[in-house]
């Protein structure tokens, strides 16, 4: 897979007040020695607890913060300074509170000019996020969901190769969240590398190709959710969903309502089929990875 962005040993630490020396500052928390690469068209989930360094990592990748150690390489493997990264990467910060009497259209046009004057891209970005009806409203009149879409549109201006989204699902209702996921999936299918940092782990389940687990500024695990679960020894029993009469099996059976039952534990074998009897099998497979459990297991390992 073609790599669009690569980080080698990237470190950035924020300056914080020094409690022992008045008016002085010292290096505080941040990200340490991060090595990772983003593939073309990959959808990547960046997860971690509060204060893990997710936003800092995204800002460093976006060229908003300058790397203190290590380097960021483009698709050709050439190290890029911060100002060059900003031209190839779209960044959606967390919770931007757009305000004032200006319209989304005017704001996006201003941002397009700041990117080098590609005003023709503004309409496309507006259409992609579904803000056509709101382009001429004052920003004060936008709902939280509309503001999120405006921020997303601002990140997509300039058709970036890499899109970095910090908590994009905040403030979105379920329908808007699904719509956002569809947009991001479509962008990934066009070759854009998309990194989503989110606390809404259920939104990432089944959507992302790969996970990056961050804890205390370090990348502690990386890979597809299923692989990580196995690697971390997360229990994922077999689950069979049947419809019909309650199956008479020596395993945990959960009533899902409407005549459906979930059997946990045994694989679907001939003897299990006999035990199920006349009930029909709707679904069978290993339990889906719960990202919250994954994160807890990964960070528990780090604490030990």
């Amino acid at each position: 897979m073609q790599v669009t962005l690569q980080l080698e040993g990237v470190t950035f630490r924020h300056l914080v007040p020094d409690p022992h020396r008045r008016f002085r500052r010292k290096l505080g928390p941040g990200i340490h020695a991060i090595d990772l690469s983003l593939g073309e068209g990959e959808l990547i989930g960046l997860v971690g607890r509060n204060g893990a360094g997710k936003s800092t990592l995204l800002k460093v990748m976006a060229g908003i913060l300058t790397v203190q150690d290590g380097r960021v390489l483009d698709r050709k493997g050439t190290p890029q300074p911060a100002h060059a990264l900003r031209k190839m990467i779209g960044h959606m910060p967390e919770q931007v509170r757009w305000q004032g009497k200006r319209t989304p259209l005017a704001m996006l046009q201003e941002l397009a000019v700041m990117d080098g004057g590609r005003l023709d891209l503004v309409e496309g970005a507006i259409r992609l996020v579904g803000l056509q009806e709101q382009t001429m409203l004052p920003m004060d009149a936008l709902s939280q969901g509309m503001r999120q879409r405006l921020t997303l549109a601002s990140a997509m201006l300039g058709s970036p190769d890499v899109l970095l989204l910090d908590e994009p699902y905040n403030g979105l209702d379920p329908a808007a969240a699904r719509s956002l996921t569809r947009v991001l999936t479509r962008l990934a299918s066009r070759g854009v590398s998309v990194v989503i940092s989110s606390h809404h782990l259920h939104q990432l389940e089944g959507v992302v190709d790969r996970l990056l687990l961050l804890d205390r500024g370090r990348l502690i695990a990386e890979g597809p959710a299923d692989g990580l679960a196995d690697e971390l020894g997360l229990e994922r029993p077999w689950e069979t969903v049947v419809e019909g009469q309650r199956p008479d099996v020596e395993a945990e059976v959960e009533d899902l309502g409407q005549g459906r039952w979930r059997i946990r534990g045994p694989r679907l074998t001939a003897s299990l089929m006999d035990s199920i009897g006349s009930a029909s099998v709707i679904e069978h497979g290993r339990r889906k990875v719960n990202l919250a459990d994954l994160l807890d297991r990964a960070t528990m390992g780090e604490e030990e």
Partner: protein
Amino acid sequence: MSTRTVVALPLLILAIPGAAWGLSDPNTTLPADIPLDTPMQMLFVSSLFVLLTATLAAVLYAWDGVSRDRASGVLEVHLGRGMGRRGQATVIAASHLMVTTLPVMVLAVVAIVIIRIRTGAWASFGDSVVFLGSTMLVVTWYTTIALLASSYARDQGTAIAFGVGVWFLFTMLWLLVTSVLAGLAGIEVGSTANAQWVQFEAVVDLLSPNGVYHHLLELRLENVDRGLGAGPVIVAAVAWTVLPLWWFQRRMEGLVP
């Protein structure tokens, strides 16, 4: 029209053309026999009103020039664009300068015209250029200082405290600061007949944007000599123009949103 303009514009109109109107009245007399014989003398006295209103207007427009966008997250969006940070700093400064200097300059020209109408005499070309140029400069200095303060403030309350505090220091408290420094230096304070005090005050005024503004205007007054030549005054004016702007650009380059 923005709320800030609704607040600032009447004050500017009252102060700048209003002061010119009042000072160009032949029946007007000022305490301490301050002369009002020539248009430049009238413009010089009206500059007090410029310092009270135009500089406050500059702070009013610029105090949240960076802090508001920083608090809302919009600054992070801007800093993520392809445009360099130095360029963004220049645009922020230029846009805020235009908002304040344009109305002030228009009203300053109106003041010159009012004096002409009321007294029958135009301020000379040189006097007009120095008055307009100096007025534009002092508004520039306050705008840049307010933006610089705004870039350091982490919340809106701190931003306005910085902005108004700086204005208050240079507009209301500077004489007190000068007096304290003179006292510490063993110089008798307050008497204009005391050459040592006059020269000391002139030097300390170079450290204040209001002081430099008045120094520039005094270059066009014949009967004023505070012991400083044009050289130090022009150097101070250049420093007040360049240094805060340079500092603001450096600040924006390193700002973490």
